[in-house]
């Protein structure tokens, strides 16, 4: 039998050579340099593809005059209230399904039906019900997160190890104290995954809503900014808006990782440790 030239198992990618974060930074920097060079060499119109330097300049300009922060704040306000409300509703529904079993069937069935529906599809309905304004977008965001969150929390609650449940009962914990002291912390890995998914759904939904329906509130958000700047052919500003969305997404990802590190990882509740 020929000796395989590739070792059967490689050490994990993160462990080799340069630190993974450093390697990622190098890749991003190389990409930016390549982009700059291509723009200059090809002579493409800045109306179609601006150079990264122009984008950064615009980004700093929007940041400096406070516009970018105002747009970001408008988007995040809707997003945080929508996602927060959605998570709360989902947790209450899941908690109730532990105490009252028939509620569980209702929640699981509703979640299974609503989950495949792209959340943005109910925006027209929300506009009918709530009128044009942040209320409609918050409703859409709540709807986009609540079902994914409920499904995850439900799986978490259903898979609480029987020993932990019994210890809780043994200590005389019942109903909401049992949920608070045992079910919630025991299903935290699932709940955090649910929050990640909820955030991602909500984030996409709110930007899409702003793009499609423009400034729904008194003040437009990042999606609105991108639409306006496109209308005015300020392509570098469009790119700056997209860049802001990426930066915020990365920051939130970092925050989630931090939360996991100081909770479920520290407690050995993840399979990856």
């Amino acid at each position, binding site marked *: 039998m020929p000796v395989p030239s590739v070792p059967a198992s490689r050490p994990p990618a993160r462990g080799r050579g340069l630190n993974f974060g450093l390697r990622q930074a190098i890749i991003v920097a190389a990409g930016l340099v390549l982009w700059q060079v291509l723009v200059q060499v090809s002579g493409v119109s800045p109306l179609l593809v601006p150079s990264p330097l122009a984008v950064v300049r615009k980004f700093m300009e929007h940041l400096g005059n406070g516009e970018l922060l105002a747009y970001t704040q408008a988007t995040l306000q809707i997003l945080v209230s929508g996602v927060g409300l959605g998570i709360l509703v989902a947790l209450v529904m899941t908690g109730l399904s532990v105490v009252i079993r028939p509620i569980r069937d209702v929640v699981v069935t509703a979640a299974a039906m609503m989950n495949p529906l792209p959340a943005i599809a109910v925006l027209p309905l929300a506009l009918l019900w709530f009128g044009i304004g942040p209320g409609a977008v918050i409703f859409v965001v709540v709807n986009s997160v609540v079902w994914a969150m409920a499904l995850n929390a439900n799986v978490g609650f259903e898979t609480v*190890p029987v*020993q*932990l449940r*019994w*210890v809780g*009962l*043994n*200590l*005389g*914990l019942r109903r909401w*104290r049992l949920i608070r*002291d*045992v079910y919630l*912390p*025991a299903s*935290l890995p699932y709940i955090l995954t649910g929050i990640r998914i909820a955030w991602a759904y909500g984030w996409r939904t709110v930007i899409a809503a702003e793009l499609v329906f423009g400034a729904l509130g008194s003040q437009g958000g990042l999606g609105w900014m991108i639409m306006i700047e496109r209308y005015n052919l300020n392509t570098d500003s469009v790119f700056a808006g997209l860049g802001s969305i990426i930066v915020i997404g990365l920051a939130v990802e970092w925050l989630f990782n931090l939360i996991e590190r100081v*909770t479920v990882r*520290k*407690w*050995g*509740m993840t399979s990856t440790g």
Partner: protein
Amino acid sequence: MAPPASIGSDGVVTGPGAGKAEVAHAKLGVAGVEIQFEIGKHAHLAVAETSFSVADGEKLILLGPSGCGKSTLLKAIGGFIRPSRGEILLDGIPVREPGPDRMLIFQEFGQLFPWKTIEGNIVHALRAVRGCSAGEARDIAARHLEMVGLLPDRHFYPHTISGGMKQRVAIARALAVDPAVLLMDEPFGALDAQTREVLQRELNQLWAKTRKTIVFVTHAIDEAVRLGERIIVLTAGPGRIKAVFANPCAESYLADFEGDPAGAAELRKEIRGLLEQRPARGIGG
């Protein structure tokens, strides 16, 4: 039809059943308990009519082969399973649901809350059961961690400690709550042989100090003889009491765990003989 009585190795005649009055006045009474599981349309009899009682401060062993219904019986005492017939009485009062007066310790290591430190697990139990203040709970927790030798490790999380340490914490937590009866379901069964022996000795020492009422389930004859004051032997298919032994070596093992007191070998042999007999009606299930 009453099963035959047997003669324990100390010569005391003991019957498998206990009198109604005796059961009612004991610390813990198991009165005519029968436990059936419904599996689809079939009813599987896990524990046949069983009666016995546990005196205050007694360390009782339920010994029997795997699958004979020991865990099922213990869970019923804990209030986690409802008997199909009969009653379980704690201080004469029927048991209806789980409660901190009967703390159950499992064989599995996953009985500590992973999100709480060793100390946090005990503090949480104390606050849940007794509603003490955080400071008071930490004091009581420290006392019990000291007893199992884990005070220096109190700030560790469960996933960072060994199986033996986890079982010690579970025991410390159960004792801290100060239950009327401590129920132990093969708590050392998943440990390596050395650690198991260490914990068996520690349990004897703890019991000598506290004289807590304990019902300890095991399938190991050796463990039963070293730990039990009284040993109830169960047979399988369905589980029923075969014999009850007053252990003549109990005090010797408390004083010298490694010793080989007179009568221990005979007792082990007699129990082994009982367990090797084929059940009268064949092995069910």
